[in-house]
């Protein structure tokens, strides 16, 4: 087993038993309190210059995603062009943080974004189910990295997690982290399949202990994806983790965030929970595709005073 990064919590991961004891020793989540807090923070009114700032920040945080069986090189190139230059009518529009594609499209995506600074993220490890042998998963990761992926989005083995086999989950993340090399690793928990908030908290800590650079809510392929509540919970986890270990971990809600209003609510959660350090696309991302168009329409509204419409943004 590869060695875990040395920090105050290293002891927790020495054996299955210590890991279990640590995870079950985490405080239980107050479900009602969490949801009330998340919805209360969603009522903030963000207007005028603050709104303009939030919209630009949100655009710069998007992992522009296409994860369909029907993805073609042409579609990936179009996505790359859009990530680099989201609104051709306004060159002042920030670039998105990354494009997110399947491993076999990484080379195409890499070519499309060129040296613009937009990163290429690739899902791997038998995304979205994660039901494959570890060797297959690692092969998936190595191929993506070899093709030039800057970031790897892996899925955890939810079956092992739900069966209580935390060490397997932990070791798989460690192994993928090693296989990722220089690429930053995002660990997807698929919160919609973890059933309880307590489980989401435990999964967050496993991911962070195993060396994740980002923890990510979901694949976007199941019924329940990112919600304010589960994102708030994960933001609390990264905040607490940094307090205890000094290591900062990013958060990426993905799936179901479609409007500017939603995105701004998430930014409020970030600011109020994790703090300003996370208000940067190095530490917070949105996994989204249709969100970008809504942000662009809002941006046009702020610039011109007229409500915009879907005829004035690209179809993707």
């Amino acid at each position, binding site marked *: 087993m590869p060695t875990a990064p040395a920090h105050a919590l290293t002891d927790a991961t020495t054996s299955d038993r210590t890991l279990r004891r640590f995870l079950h020793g985490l405080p239980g989540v107050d479900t009602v309190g969490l949801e009330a807090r998340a919805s209360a923070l969603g009522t903030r009114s963000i207007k005028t210059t603050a709104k303009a700032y939030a919209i630009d920040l949100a655009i710069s945080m998007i992992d522009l995603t296409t994860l369909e069986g029907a993805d073609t090189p042409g579609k990936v190139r179009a996505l790359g062009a859009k990530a680099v230059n989201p609104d051709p009518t306004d060159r002042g529009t920030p670039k998105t943080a990354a494009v997110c594609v399947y491993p076999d499209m990484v080379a195409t995506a890499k070519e499309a974004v060129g040296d613009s600074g937009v990163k290429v993220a690739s899902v791997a490890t038998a995304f979205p189910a994660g039901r494959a042998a570890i060797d297959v998963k690692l092969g998936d990761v190595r191929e993506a990295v070899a093709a030039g992926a800057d970031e790897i989005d892996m899925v955890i083995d939810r079956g092992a997690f739900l069966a209580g086999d935390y060490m397997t989950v932990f070791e798989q993340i460690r192994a993928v982290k090693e296989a990722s090399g220089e690429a930053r690793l995002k660990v997807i928990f698929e919160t919609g399949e973890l059933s309880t908030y307590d489980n989401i908290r435990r999964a967050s800590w496993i991911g962070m202990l195993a060396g994740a650079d980002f923890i990510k809510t979901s694949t976007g392929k199941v019924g329940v994806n990112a919600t304010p509540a589960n994102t708030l919970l994960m933001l609390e986890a990264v905040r607490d983790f940094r307090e205890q270990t000094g290591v900062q971990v990013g958060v990426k809600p993905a799936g179901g965030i479609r409007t500017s209003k939603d995105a701004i609510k998430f930014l409020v959660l970030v600011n109020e929970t994790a703090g300003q350090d996370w208000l940067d696309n190095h530490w917070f991302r949105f996994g989204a595709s249709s969100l970008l168009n809504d942000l662009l329409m809002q941006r*046009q509204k702020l610039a011109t005073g*007229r*409500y*915009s*419409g*879907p*005829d004035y943004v690209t179809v993707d």
Partner: protein
Amino acid sequence: MSDRLTVLKTYKLYVGGKFPRSESGRVYEVTDSKNKWLANAPLSSRKDARDAVVAARKAQGGWAGKTAYLRGQILYRVAEMLEGRKDQFVREVADAEGLSKSKAAVVVDAAIDRWVWYAGWTDKVAQIVGGGNPVAGPFFNLSSPEPTGVVTVVAPQESSFLGLVSVIAPVIATGNTAVVIASENSPLPALSLGEVLATSDLPGGVVNILSGRTAEITPSLASHQDVNAIDLAGVEDDDLAKELEVAAADNLKRVVRPQPVDWSADPGTHRLTAFLETKTVWHPTGSLGASGSSY
């Protein structure tokens, strides 16, 4: 007999098939022609108007895609529902326009008849404004009318029900969807019409009804890039009408200018054809073979 508590009706907007309050939480007092309080109506904001446009856009493709025959059936269904709630509309129209019950009943009957009349037009309008064009060449040349898209309708201020029906029905009959600004001082018949539309198989979002200050809501709709046309029937202030027309020009909206209309007269097809775009198809006929005959 026990004294009953008065059951006051909360009038609400009709947007996307639902009955929301104004997003702003505001209301304003609606009075009858003698300044007696009737009800509080929602005072819509620009955001309500934007939400209504989103709902109308979402509904447009589905509504235009239904067969003209089915649209006619659904509009006829609206007339059936209006018939069933005639008493309520007679009361509201009498209050709003200061008419006697019998005169109001005449107005409501005329409105229902007009609705039926437009229902009949859905599958006939294509024959009137479309068809084959004679061209000098071996082509079939066919024109057919298509709906313009999302239409903002500023309903007439005085004729709170007959005028209202006369501006909504022609817009939706041809497959457009509508964002309607009800008469500012008499919005109650319009808000009640929303309740009728919601129970008439009309898909949510095809008609969206807002009440509030005309001068407050209309500018953002006139400049809205996702609105394709605007009917200024109920804009009585010339300066406002001009301002709205200028704003509408920005994305080349179709505009129907305000003009005096006798709503009780035969409406003709003007409003029905005002919100149509003509699609023309050139189809080469070629030759059918050695004989040289063509289609």
